[in-house]
């Protein structure tokens, strides 16, 4: 018990919260970027543009079938030596998460659009709307409603997945708690409890938010 009291000193808690801030910051930026990129890629894949859609589809499939850990390594070590782009830990983590989650989201978005029946598109087109107009005003709003729950659970995954970036020493929640229990191994269990609690709070709030949002949309 004494371990718990000592472990949750103000200094340690502040260090953990600093880590959590990095987790949230990196996740938030990646969420926004991957949503935009994922939406564009999903649309292109849905529209079946000759060659382009197939190539993008293939890239998406490759990324979706690789472990995120590997993508993180590649962004941190591989990009610089292959393309001469040098990233620090924060950018490398953001880029890796964005690349991975964009591919996941693109699939969700393509599936969501596809689930709206083709008849609607035809009806809209025959009423004089252009393809893009029909997409923007008729198809996307409906598809979006169906997509909210899977998209948000993908965002929750993103927050959790950001913990993998400890491998490149991103100063996020997991890494900071490892630093604390690395210096005093008596704090190991308290740190695990704190870490699990903090991740849980962020992810749980996010998923509750999505449920509320889904209810309002319907």
């Amino acid at each position: 018990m004494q371990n718990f009291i000592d472990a949750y000193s103000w200094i340690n808690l502040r260090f953990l919260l600093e880590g959590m801030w990095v987790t949230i910051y990196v996740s938030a930026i990646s969420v926004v970027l991957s949503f935009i990129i994922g939406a564009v890629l999903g649309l292109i894949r849905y529209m079946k543009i000759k060659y382009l859609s197939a190539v993008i589809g293939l890239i998406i499939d490759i990324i979706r079938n690789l472990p995120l850990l590997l993508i993180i390594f590649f962004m941190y070590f591989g990009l610089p030596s292959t393309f001469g782009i040098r990233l620090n830990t924060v950018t490398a983590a953001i880029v890796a998460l964005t690349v991975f989650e964009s591919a996941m989201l693109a699939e969700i978005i393509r599936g969501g659009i596809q689930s709206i029946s083709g008849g609607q598109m035809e009806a809209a087109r025959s009423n004089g709307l252009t393809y893009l107009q029909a997409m923007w005003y008729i198809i996307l709003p409906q598809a979006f409603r169906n997509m909210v729950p899977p998209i948000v659970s993908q965002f929750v995954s993103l927050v959790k997945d950001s913990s993998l970036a400890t491998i490149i020493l991103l100063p996020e929640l997991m890494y900071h708690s490892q630093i604390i229990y690395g210096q005093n191994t008596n704090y190991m269990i308290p740190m695990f409890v704190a870490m699990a609690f903090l991740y849980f709070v962020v992810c749980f709030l996010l998923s509750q938010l999505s449920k509320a949002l889904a209810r309002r949309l319907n």
Partner: protein
Amino acid sequence: MQHMRLKQLRLWCLLPLFILTLMLTACGQHVGEKDVMQTERETNEITWGVKGDMRLFGLTDIETGEIRGFEVDIAKAVSKEIFGKNVKVNFVPVNSNTRLPLLKNGNVDALIATMSITADRKKEIDFSDVYFNAGQAIMVKKGSKIKSVKDLTSGTKVIGIQGSNSVLNIKKYAPKSEVLQLSDAAQAFAALKSGQGDAMTTDNGILYGLTSDDPSYHVVGGSFTTEPYGIGVNKGQKKFLTAINKALKKIEKNGEYQKLVDKWFSQISGFDGSVVK
């Protein structure tokens, strides 16, 4: 119909592999190697890769977030000698797995990260003169039957750190023991404490840092290799390397080096003073 689908399926499976192979052939060269001396003079900034989880050498201070340790102090002293008092010195935490790629990719200008000078590494990067002489040792819980590296016989497990020279050495000194490699010293020690292995092996200085944290563990059997630590810089940075060596000589002569050794190692019980350069 069915048959065609399957055929298509197979094609789709092969294609990505093919494309990936194509991508790979394009890989290869490193970041353009600029002269560190010149860039640093212009920006008045230098970035070092240091350990962030090793007491005595480079440890993140939980209160301030800064990394402190012997190697950090040496890096500051060397930077000041080369670039003057006002140089801005940045520190990037690295571990044994990430340090070489980060140096080669140019994320850091130099490495001072408990790195032994080895023939294999010399093929990849250049090393300065030795700034610290460590030796590999093993650490066990007090009361353990293992008294030296010779006791690591078959059926024992020894924990090491990925990318460190010591995991290569231990295979020679204790070939029968199973080696488990974790990503850094903190994780390795945590794994040892929870009984994942019978002993942990790395350089003595690092182990003494850990035992000063937790006296229920101790270093046994003395060191069985010599691990001379050097500052790592990229190949083709001859000017920078010469400047580092000159700076190291200077701080040794003016007593600053000894002051730092005393600051970090004088209170470590069991640490042999003669181990230090």
